Structures are given as structure tokens and as C-alpha cells.
């Protein structure tokens, strides 16, 4: 239970202070990807920050973008991920994995993990956006094929939800 203000609240203040302590790109990126794994997407580790994760993630991204601007040259900025890897090579590898995938739940994880690990500013936007489009197309195709093949009961089991109540 949150029980605090929507906009100005102590949770955002605490995270603003933590973000203020990030002074190198390497630390900022590690902080960002750990935050995303722990607090974002349906596969997150905890819902503790359910009300504020979007705002906090945005603030971390702002800081990482500034650190990136300070540490990378123009060529690196356009072509490399923040870890130094060539962005297009990383993108090609994940697209190849998705092309080979024919299970929608695996494809979903692949797409979610790609966003967690590489959503800008980690990967340059020019590479990320097109890769995200290609992954999204394949995921939508897998999800929408034989959409009504399973009953709701079967679909709940397949998704792995725990049914609390059905009226």
C-alpha cells in the first residue's frame, strides 16, 4: 500500500538522491539495467515500486544519457552500445535468435529482455528502434497465430497464472 502523494513523494526523492551519486557511464548503465530487471516489465522481481517505477526509470535514463554524452565520441555515440559492443552486431544477433524462435513465450522473454538490456540510452536509438520493430513483428505473428485455439482455462494454465477467483 503506497499511501503517499502521486507526484511529490519520498520515494521519488530517495531515488533522485541515488541517481545523483552516479558519476560514470559504467556505473550508470549497471544501475539502470539492474533497476529495469528488478522493477519493470511483467517479469519484474518485485512490485514495490509499482507506482513510481516509470518516473524513476526515466530519471535514470536521463542521467545515463548525460554520462554517455560526456564519455563517448560521436562515432561511439552513433554505433556502439554503452558497454562498447557494436550496436548493429548486438542487434543482428538478437534478431537471428528471434527468427529462429517459434514459441511465443520464449519470443516474449527475448523481446522483454532486449528492452531491459538495450533500451536507449544503452543502445543508440537509430539501431534500437528498428530492432525493436523486427522483434515486435515476429512476436505479434506468434501471438496472433491460432489465437483462439486454446480455451481460457488452458490459456491460464499455459500463462502460469494462479486463479484467485472466477465468478
Amino acid at each position, binding site marked *: 500500500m503506497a499511501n503517499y502523494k502521486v507526484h511529490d513523494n519520498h520515494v521519488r526523492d530517495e531515488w533522485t538522491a541515488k541517481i545523483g551519486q552516479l558519476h560514470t557511464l559504467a556505473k550508470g548503465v549497471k544501475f539502470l539495467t539492474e533497476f529495469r530487471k528488478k522493477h519493470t516489465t511483467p517479469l519484474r522481481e518485485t512490485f514495490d515500486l509499482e507506482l513510481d517505477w516509470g518516473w524513476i526509470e526515466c530519471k535514470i535514463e536521463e542521467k545515463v544519457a548525460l554520462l554517455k554524452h560526456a564519455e563517448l565520441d560521436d562515432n561511439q555515440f552513433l554505433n556502439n552500445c554503452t558497454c562498447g559492443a557494436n550496436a548493429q552486431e548486438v542487434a543482428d544477433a538478437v534478431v537471428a535468435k528471434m527468427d529462429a524462435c517459434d514459441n511465443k513465450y520464449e519470443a516474449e522473454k527475448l523481446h522483454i529482455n532486449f528492452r531491459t538490456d538495450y533500451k536507449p540510452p544503452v543502445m543508440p536509438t537509430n539501431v534500437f528502434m528498428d530492432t525493436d520493430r523486427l522483434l515486435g513483428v515476429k512476436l*505479434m505473428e506468434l501471438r496472433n497465430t491460432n489465437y483462439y485455439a486454446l480455451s481460457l482455462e488452458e490459456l491460464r494454465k499455459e500463462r502460469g497464472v*494462479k486463479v484467485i477467483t472466477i465468478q
Partner: protein
Amino acid sequence: MAISAATKAATDALAVNRAPTSVSAQEVHRWLQSFTWDFDKNRSKYPTKYKMANDTKEQFKLIAKEYARMESVKDERQFGSLQDVLTRIDAGNKVHPKWNETMKVISNFLEVGEYNAIAATGMLWDSASAPEQKNGYLAQTLDEIRHTNQCGYVNYYFTKHGQDAAGHNDARRTRTIGPLWKGMKRVFSDGFISGDAVECSINLQLVGEACFTNPLIVAVTEWAAANGDEITPTVFLSIETDELRHMANGYQTIVSIANDEAASKYLNTDLNNAFWTQQKYFTPVLGMMFEYGSHFKVEPWVKTWNRWVYEDWGGIWIGRLGKYGVESPASLRDAKKDAYWAHHDLFLLAYALWPTGFFRLTLPTAEEADWFEENYPGWHEHYGVIYEEWRKRGCEDPNSGFIPLMWFIENNHPIYIDRVSQVPFCPDLCKGASTLRVHEYNGKKNTFSDDWGERMWLTEPERYECQNMFEQYAGRELSEVIAELHGVRSDGKTLIAQPHTDKDGKMWTLDDIKALNCVFSDPVDAL
């Protein structure tokens, strides 16, 4: 040196007629189509399962000059009427007070739909590859910019010339307090601009515009006029004159993918999900706005719905697309059940939650209650008796210390919010088709109210992440929430929302709400 196709066309035309006295707009349009790009090397920025054909036509073949001339005439008529005639006759103060409140919601929410449609049609422009099809989408982008301004102008006009400015003037910040907002964002925002570009076109053009603008933008003008509002028809009918082209764009989207094998695999599923998405919100909300937000009634919402949604759209419009493999959505049958009672169910909750609104609501008068019973037999026994009880307990009077939300708590009738549509429902009391189902996934409980939405979530859970008002405000006292989110009038203490429109009635203040000590809790915690 090679000459361009355009230059060749002009040269050929001059060869036929050395001294043309005029060139028709359609000739110009044909000529412009030769200014195109090499689409084989282009790719869209947006994902889609479909491939749009390169030679899709567009029926209206508008060119910019023709378009601008047409729209400027419409704007002159509209703004001329509003600023001259309607102001002179004091039109803003002749609107029935109940309808004045309804327009706080309708115009402001439609503004959001129009705003998102700008982005949606821009996305479609990028996704299409046929020059004519792009041209149709581009004209629509310009229309949507115009419509966004028009909707904003309606609220501005009511603010400046009407009877109760609060809510018309600051809806953009106060609309987020209550539960109607997030459902509206689901249909008007997420539905139009998220996911597959073609699915977005189906949501916006094939369902939103071809199906629901008739009840929304046309029927609303009838209800407005019946309730003394000359302002809304002046603007909304001007908007509607553009909608035909938008419906045609939706038609052409389908034509453009008709020969793509993806259409046979995905199209009817996307249409069914788009229809359910749009109807789940619009069916109850529009019915509620018309019937409970008016004094003078036009016709029962269920009749309007049957005519425009079920027969005209589900039968005739979708029927015409049958040759392209399009089928009427399977969910249409379930939607038809909702068209009878769902808006009554929603008003019960909307009135109970009135302090979180940015408008004033009123309970049906005795005369209105008779109309409801006559048109919806069984209405009084189910809903009317509850309203009588609330009225007896003084729900309109701040001295009573009673708001209907307390009645729900006292009688253990929990209110849930559907995760997919974001529409609130009370399983104990609803006569519509909603039923409660709750899951837990990765430690998070999610509530649903129907099979179609539950299936959408099970397929694509990340799309529907959105905290509802009970999750967002749990543990907080109601007046604190209202104060933080600016739900007060210019005196800083009187609520914008009120449970009546009586100009002699006492207005509720933050102190009145605070005295109730009403604290939000999330009903799923008790499960």
C-alpha cells in the same frame, strides 16, 4: 537528359491542349502521384504483421489546395456562428445544466482521441507504401489537428460564455483523478497508437470512426440540441464532415492488405479485439453520458446502439468488407448484451465516486426515473430504489455526511476495475454481462470482467500494465487526493465535482469530504 514523369505528363498535356484555361483538381492529383519515392528500399518505422499493397487507391483524391479551401470555409462558418450569433443569443447559458456538465467530459475526452489520432494517422502515413493511400492518411492527420483544436475550443467556449466554468477550464489536469480517465486512455490512446500499425488503423478507422463516431459525434448533437446546446452541434457536425474520409481510409487499409496472406491469419482476430476494446468503454460511457447527463431524452441508448453499432456497422459496413474476408466480430453478440444495462451499471458507480470527477452529476428526477423504467423495465427495482435510498440519506447535501461510496462499503459491495479496459464494475450489483475473475501472475493480482479482455491480457500482459485508482490511492484519505490533484474551484476549497447541479444547493468542500474520513482501499487485497 531524362525527364521526370511529372514533366512528361505536363508536356503531354500541353501537346493535347496548347492553351489550357483550367486544370481540374483531379488532374493535379494524378500529376502529383508521380512525385513519389522508391518504396522498395523504404521501410516503416512501425511494426506490423501485414504488408500494405503498393497500388492502393484513395477515393477522395484531395490535394492540399482543395483541402485547405474546404476546411477554411468550414472553420469560417463554425467560428462565425460561435463568436457572433451564438454569443449574442447567450447560447452558453441556455444549455441545460446537466448537459453543460456532460460536455465537460465529452469534449475534453474527444480532444484526447483526436490528439492521438494525429499520431495514429502519421504512423499510418509512414507504414503505407501507396502514394494515394499516403495522401488519404496525410489529409486525415491534418483533420485530426483541426479536430483537436475544435474540441479544446468547445470547452474554452463553455468556460468563457457558459454557466459553470470549473471543469471546462482545467479538465486537462483534473480529469486524471477519477476512474473514467484511464479507460478513455485505453481506447483513445493505447488503442490508436500502440502495437501493430494496421491493428491501430482497425481500432481508429474501422471501429472508432466507422462504428462509434456515429453514436459519439452525430448522436451527441441530437442530445445536445434537445438540451438547449447549440454550441456542440455547431462544432461536432463540422468535425463529422471529415469523418467520412476517415472511414474511407479504414476501408482502404483493409483493401491494401486484402491480398496479403497475413490477412487471412490475423485480420479477424485484430478486428474482434479492436471492437471489444472500443465497445467495452464506449458502450457504457456514451449511454451514461446521454441518458444520465441530460434532462430531455432523445431515445433509449440501446436503440441508438442497435441502429448504429449492430445494424449499420456490424451488418452493413462490415458486410461490405466481407469480400475481403472480414467477418463481423464474434464479440458483437456479447456487446449487444452490454448495450442494455452496462451504462446503468456504470452510472451507479460514477455517482458513488462523484468526488473524484471534474464535473457535477445529478441523480435522475422522478420524471427521468419514469422514463428509465418505461424504456428499461426493471430499472426501478434494481437501480431506482438505490437512488431513492441515497437521496433520503441526503447524498446531495454536504451536511448529511454521506456520499454513496460509503453505502457500497457498508453493504459490502466491492468495486473492482477491469485491468484491460480499466472500466470499473461491481459484480454484486451489475445487470450487464460483467463477471469477476481474478488472477495472480508473478506476485501481482489482476482483475477482469469478461472473457474477451481476459484472453487479451493472457496473450499480451505487458500491454495492460496500468495502476487503477484503488492501487494508486490505497491508504489515502479522499480529500487529500482531491486537493493534491487540483479537484477544487478557484476558492481553493470548493470541489469542482458536485453531486447536484442545483444553483441554490449547497456545494461540497474539501472540509466536508475530510469529515467523512473516507480512506481508499484496494478490494483485491481482501481476496
